[in-house]
């Protein structure tokens, strides 16, 4: 097996930004994968990782804005970013559809992230060559 064989990846992020290093490690990994000619099929946010899809994160201006950096990366490379619906709803991450459905005062999901079920994760595992998880640390 050669390093140059193109691979495809599903990445799963379970650690939140500004709480864990997972979003940074995953972004550095994803950029390196694409640079090597591999494909990133999908990024799936699970558990506390759904916070990465927040449209409202406002860190100090001298710190990386991880939700924005990830959004830009996903858009540039046409990669779907999906937040698990069960994790997202519990943690107050909602799109306009869920806002209406639950009669909430606002929505806060940052494009191009979408909300979907764990089926997206199951499908990613089946169709990608490798699924790599980025968890919170300690």
């Amino acid at each position, binding site marked *: 097996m050669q390093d140059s064989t193109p691979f495809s990846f599903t990445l*799963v992020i*379970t*650690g939140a930004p500004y709480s864990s290093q997972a979003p940074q490690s995953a972004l550095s990994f994803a950029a390196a994968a694409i640079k090597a000619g591999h494909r990133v099929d999908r990024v799936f946010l*699970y*558990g*506390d*990782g759904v916070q990465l899809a927040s449209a409202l994160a406002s860190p100090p201006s001298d710190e990386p804005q991880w939700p924005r950096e990830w959004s830009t990366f996903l858009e540039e490379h046409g990669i779907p970013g999906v937040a698990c619906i*069960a*994790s997202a709803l*519990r943690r107050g991450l909602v799109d306009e559809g869920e806002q209406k459905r639950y009669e909430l005062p606002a929505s806060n999901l940052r494009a191009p992230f979408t909300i979907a*079920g*764990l*089926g997206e*994760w*199951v*499908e990613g*595992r*089946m169709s990608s060559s490798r*699924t790599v*998880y980025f*968890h*919170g640390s300690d």
Partner: protein
Amino acid sequence: MSTLIVIDQPPYGSWAGREALDMAFSLAAFDQPVSLLFCGAGVNWLRKGQEPGTIRQKSVEKNLAAAPIFGVEALLADGDDCKRYGLEAEQLLDGVTLVQADSQLFTNYSHTAFAG
């Protein structure tokens, strides 16, 4: 080959275990073979007689009892960890298989994942 979902955190104190369970149930729902391994403090998921009503949570016992029905192939628990937490056979939920969570066990699965 099958997927192994590992739960090594105790129930109720965090949500990671519940989210691991959801992963296992989802795989099973899509007809993907999956087993659950409880190790470390995670073996406390398997203790009989959990009554979490006062702390406002639902018992995970019922979820685990439903695992075979949903198609989860096996509930595995590390025997040494059960012993360490004083879990004798009669205190364990039904349907749990005691194993040794070693190198050998993991080679039986093509994928292994934690929920967080």
